[in-house]
């Protein structure tokens, strides 16, 4: 019998050859594709690249909000940077920021978020929805509202927490300002990690966990051998995002205003105080640029770890 299937080259001949004007899938062509891109690129340039470049420029001037230097800023070279790096207040602020990131993002949000996601992984129904609802609520409320709620919670006189614990007069915001904003930011940002990890845990095959259980693995061994290797990419991406967000977070200012005595003055608060309250725009811009560099380093470290994962996998 003659073969009824067509020879392999016939099928290819019938297909339209992608040549010349439209090498792309949509068939737009280079010129029209560029046309679509231009508006977006212009907006990015205008509102992202130009301000960033402007900040770098300001960082090498003595530009001020008011006074003579506001009218005629002078280029002062790297003075702002040497001043920042030798400034005790900048260095302590940097240390506080790292504490804030480590405590509230890496340990607090990621840890608590994972714990909630793991605890709820097999649950469906009202309990899960209730917990998720509450956690999400803390995330979607506006910062100003949330800040007010936390001040009300932690207030020395008549604060909810003191009333609950029966210890009136404890000044949480004065005695433990860093702890307060770390707990606050953990509470505020856990939702994102929880949702991301909940989605990631769906990807862990049940049979893998059960294989580990049948071998006699306990919870920690299951996490180490099955869960974390599987969701490592999600963990790193999550840590990258929340580290950067937390590093640049300004909401703690609404609660402690960096005080008392600069004991909760993280870098975004410090920049705000220096540049806008103190009026030293040039110096503030220099610190902003240093922050940008630190963010870049954090991002590079995480991305490098992600890349290594792909090589080994």
């Amino acid at each position, binding site marked *: 019998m003659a073969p009824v299937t067509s020879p392999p080259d016939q099928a290819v001949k019938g297909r339209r050859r992608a040549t010349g004007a439209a090498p792309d899938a949509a068939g737009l062509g280079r010129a029209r594709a560029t046309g679509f891109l231009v508006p977006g690129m212009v907006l990015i340039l205008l509102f992202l690249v130009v301000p960033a470049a402007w900040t770098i420029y300001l960082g090498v001037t003595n530009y001020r909000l008011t006074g003579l230097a506001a009218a005629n800023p002078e280029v002062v070279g790297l003075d702002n940077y040497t001043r920042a790096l030798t400034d005790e207040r900048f260095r302590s602020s940097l240390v506080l920021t790292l504490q804030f990131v480590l405590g509230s993002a890496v340990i607090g949000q990621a840890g608590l978020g994972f714990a909630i996601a793991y605890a709820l992984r097999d649950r469906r129904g009202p309990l899960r929805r209730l917990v998720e609802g509450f956690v999400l609520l803390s995330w979607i409320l506006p910062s100003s509202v949330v800040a007010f709620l936390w001040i009300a919670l932690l207030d020395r006189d008549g604060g909810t927490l003191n009333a609950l614990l029966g210890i009136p007069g404890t000044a949480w915001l004065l005695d433990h300002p860093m702890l307060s904003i770390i707990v606050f930011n953990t509470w505020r940002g856990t939702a994102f990690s929880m949702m991301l990890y909940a989605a990631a845990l769906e990807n862990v095959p049940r049979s*893998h966990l059960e294989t580990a259980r049948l*071998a*006699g*693995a306990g919870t920690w061994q299951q996490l180490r051998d099955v869960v974390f290797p599987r969701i490592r990419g999600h963990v790193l991406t999550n840590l990258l995002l929340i580290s950067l967000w937390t590093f640049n977070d300004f909401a703690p200012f609404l609660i402690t205003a960096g005080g008392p005595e600069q004991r909760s003055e993280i870098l975004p608060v410090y920049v705000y105080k220096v540049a806008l309250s103190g009026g030293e725009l040039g110096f503030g811009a220099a610190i902003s640029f240093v922050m940008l560099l630190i963010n870049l380093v954090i991002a590079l470290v995480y991305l490098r770890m992600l890349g290594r994962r792909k090589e080994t996998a």
Partner: protein
Amino acid sequence: MSAITMRELTKVYPNGVRALDALDLEIADGEFFALLGPSGCGKTTLLRTIAGLETASGGRVHIGERDVTALPPGRRDVAMVFQDYALFPHMTVQDNIAYPLRIKKVDRRARADKAAETADELGLGALLQRRPGQLSGGQQQRVALARAMACHPQVFLLDEPLSNLDARLRLEARTFLKRLQRELGVTTVFVTHDQAEALALADRIAVMEGGRIRQVGTPTEVFRRPANTFVAGFIGSTPMNLVDAEVRDGELVVAGTRLPVPEGVQVTDGEKLTYGVRPEYLDHTAEPASGGLRGRVVVVENLGSFSLVSLDLQPADAPAGDTPGTSVQVVVPEGREPAPGDTGWVVPRPGRSLLYRDGELVTPTATPAVPAARTAAGAEQ
């Protein structure tokens, strides 16, 4: 001693589904045992309950002398191979095989030795440093088997062991599995929805439906003497012909044809029964035959060395259309196929037809004279 004994084992899921309904089952030491049934019959739940991955709602499970009903999976001394093999993608073949030993805190050197030894037994010796992603489906399955073997469990549990392999590899793996089980002699329970797989592999089969066991027996028993019409319809690559029959004057009337009542069956006149005979145990002739059912050939399916012929039964002594929808299938050897539209007769071989009353088998266990029946049938044609 690692027989598995289940007593009144019941599993009710929180949503009210009764997956296992007071099951009693004994699986002998060293037996290769199949749990067979359509999807949703509870076979996988039963396997998982033996493993401890599901907790029984009632009843007991014993492995050997131990009551394991309340033990967590890790302490039951069982190993399971999952349908997707569940190999850890970030570990090498060696680490995968040695994983249960690692959990049991066996030192690194002993682990590596044991993994290498087990891998050699399964022909995986050259692949120890590969990762699961670099292996073929068959190799992955053998790694999963090696991981199960490495810690010498009392019981192997296999969940649909062949379903993830392509058709050709499946036959190969089937032979391999049966041989391996025989060599190891470890009590092995596997789940399958494929009756051919169960017949080929198992020493004994439990056919399940709706959380109950409908029949337990050797492949021969289950194939030749299905205990009820459910098993009759489920077992066999072509399901058994089940035709309504009525008792008249001490004889069976099947589609207008009078057939003798099998020996040892008590019947009363006017009683309605179900007459069952496998397509393999029917002979097709183009000439009228005594004790043959008359029908019109409607479909001929070529299956290689034989064809499966479907006939719509047309009783000789009744007007056409008297028993609408009654059709039988018959296996016809190659070269003797009728053409669609032909009239033909199918003659049941002696001793191979079964009677069911209310769905339950009533034909007593009289060992059919197999060779005699074959020659007789052959001589007729």
